[in-house]
């Protein structure tokens, strides 16, 4: 019966071919490390956020007079409402951790390089969509931190030339963040995840066309690829088990880590809390915004600090494979960048002070100079490594890739 049904479907829809092509015969490099499972975790988080979010939306009221109370209602009266909300609030942070690790892996191993530029750029659009979704979702509990976060971020659009003030009022639908803002943020917060799903499809189609990168940085010969299923389904789900143990530890025991205390006070448009901070995943960019004393300059610098990643395929001019693995200079730059991000996050979290302003400015300068230096540093590194003599296995890998290319590998 089952077999006949599949045959019936196969004559009308390429079901079996699709499963073969994308799963059971999809060639995957056998040397993928644990860092290559984070894309799968990100996909899982997207599903978890959509599921918990849809069920929360069945009880939430997007109205400035009711929103705060409806979240309390979810926490106290709805069966397992606390679980849904804590999965969703902790899930937002987990989603960003997973995405940032996924990006860090791409940067460290140079996976953004040809032919995977489109994977990197669709990923960049996904990151921006995720940030927008998270930002709009953060307004919905209608607490003080929600309210003032939205007030500050919408105000950034005042930097738009000539029509800045009108743009801000248009975004808010009011002169300040109000009921109109809350309703539209709810509508868009509900819509965006489905747009993200579409973008993920594009990301995956691109992935299955160019195939996975791997720690060696070289496209492997056929004999070094193994089918995705069962090998990587098993590995990814094993990893997911460990990931979920850590995730649910926070959901059950420390959900408050991801909820600012000030957000337990209902939004008050006339009083700003003494210390407002964005969610941790925005801190480095917020620190860059604060580091520039000029308003428009700060907004431009913050935007650039996110968009500059898109240039990576062009900034990195070294031809040695494997990102940081075989490239000491690039590896050092990556480590400095990672430390710099941590420093910026700290500066972004602390209340403004004169010492920290200087630290923030230095960290911002380092952030951008690393990107500016990269084209020269990578070129120089390429020449230096070749002159010094590459390790034999690397030369062999590069030669084997050249042979494959000559043999018509696309």
């Amino acid at each position, binding site marked *: 019966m089952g077999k006949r049904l599949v045959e019936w479907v196969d004559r009308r829809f390429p079901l079996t071919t699709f499963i073969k092509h994308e799963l059971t015969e999809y060639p995957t490099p056998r040397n993928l490390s644990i860092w290559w499972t984070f894309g799968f975790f990100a996909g899982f988080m997207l599903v978890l956020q959509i599921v918990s979010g849809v069920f929360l939306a069945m009880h939430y009221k997007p109205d400035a007079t009711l929103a705060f109370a409806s979240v309390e209602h979810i926490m106290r009266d709805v069966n397992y409402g606390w679980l849904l909300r804590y999965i969703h609030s902790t899930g937002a942070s987990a989603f960003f951790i997973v995405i940032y690790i996924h990006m860090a892996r791409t940067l460290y191993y140079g996976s953004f390089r040809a032919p995977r530029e489109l994977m990197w750029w669709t990923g960049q659009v996904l990151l921006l969509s995720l940030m927008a979704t998270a930002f709009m979702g953060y307004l919905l509990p209608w607490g003080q931190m929600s309210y*003032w976060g939205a*007030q*500050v971020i*919408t*105000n*950034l659009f005042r930097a738009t030339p000539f029509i800045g003030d009108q743009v801000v*009022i*248009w*975004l808010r*639908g*009011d*002169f*300040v963040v*109000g009921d*109109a803002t809350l309703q*539209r943020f709810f509508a868009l917060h509900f819509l965006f995840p489905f747009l993200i799903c579409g973008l993920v499809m594009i990301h995956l189609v691109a992935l299955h066309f160019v195939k996975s990168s791997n720690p060696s940085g070289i496209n492997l010969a056929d004999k070094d690829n193994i089918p995705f299923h069962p090998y990587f389904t098993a590995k990814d789900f094993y990893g997911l088990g460990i990931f979920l143990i850590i995730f649910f530890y926070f959901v059950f025991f420390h959900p408050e880590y991801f909820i600012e205390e000030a957000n337990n006070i209902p939004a008050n*448009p*006339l*009083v*700003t*809390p*003494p*210390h*407002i901070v964005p969610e941790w995943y925005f801190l480095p960019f917020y620190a860059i915004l*604060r580091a520039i*004393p*000029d*308003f428009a300059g*700060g907004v431009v610098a913050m935007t650039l600090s996110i968009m500059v990643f898109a240039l990576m395929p062009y900034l990195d001019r070294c031809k040695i494979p494997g990102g940081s693995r075989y490239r000491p200079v690039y590896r050092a730059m990556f480590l400095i960048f990672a430390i710099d991000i941590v420093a910026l996050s700290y500066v972004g979290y602390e*209340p*403004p*002070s004169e010492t920290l302003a200087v630290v923030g400015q230095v960290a911002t300068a380092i952030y951008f100079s690393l990107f500016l230096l990269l084209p020269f540093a990578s070129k120089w590194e390429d020449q230096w490594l070749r002159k010094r003599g590459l390790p034999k296995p690397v030369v062999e890998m590069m030669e084997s890739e050249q042979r494959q290319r000559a043999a018509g590998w696309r």
Partner: protein
Amino acid sequence: MKPEDPADSDRRDFLGATTAVVAGIGVCGATWPLVSSMNPTADIKSRATSEVDISRIKPGEIHTVAWQGKPVFIVHRTQEQISAAESSPGGKDPQPDQNRVQKPEWLVVVGICTHLGCVPNRGGEGWVCPCHGSRYDQSGRIMHGPAPRNLEVPPYKFVGDNKIVIG
């Protein structure tokens, strides 16, 4: 089949371009109501004025009232505060105090930091913004910090001795 007549292909390009332009204008026209619907609604715009009774604000006191949903500070300034404000030219956005008040003892300013829209708290020589540390003086003028402009003075007028109408 005859090879394509070049004049024919020109004509086709022209038709293609014309269709694209007309469709583009159509899409823009169809988007306009959607974009416009996101602007403030009529009931929000109708909250344009606020009346405030100022007879109970003692010298040195400050009242915060809502105008268009925004906080407006009404300060009954003391003689000291007035002379301090009048003797200083202001900070990076200089403006004489006389141009910012209608009566020197009453200062009326929108309580929204011109940097990122937080509400400054009373402190320092006037106000301090909790978000990024901008400091304003007794006239609401920016003295230090990232804010680019002085606190905005809303349109208002005195109606009799004890009442002002903002907006």
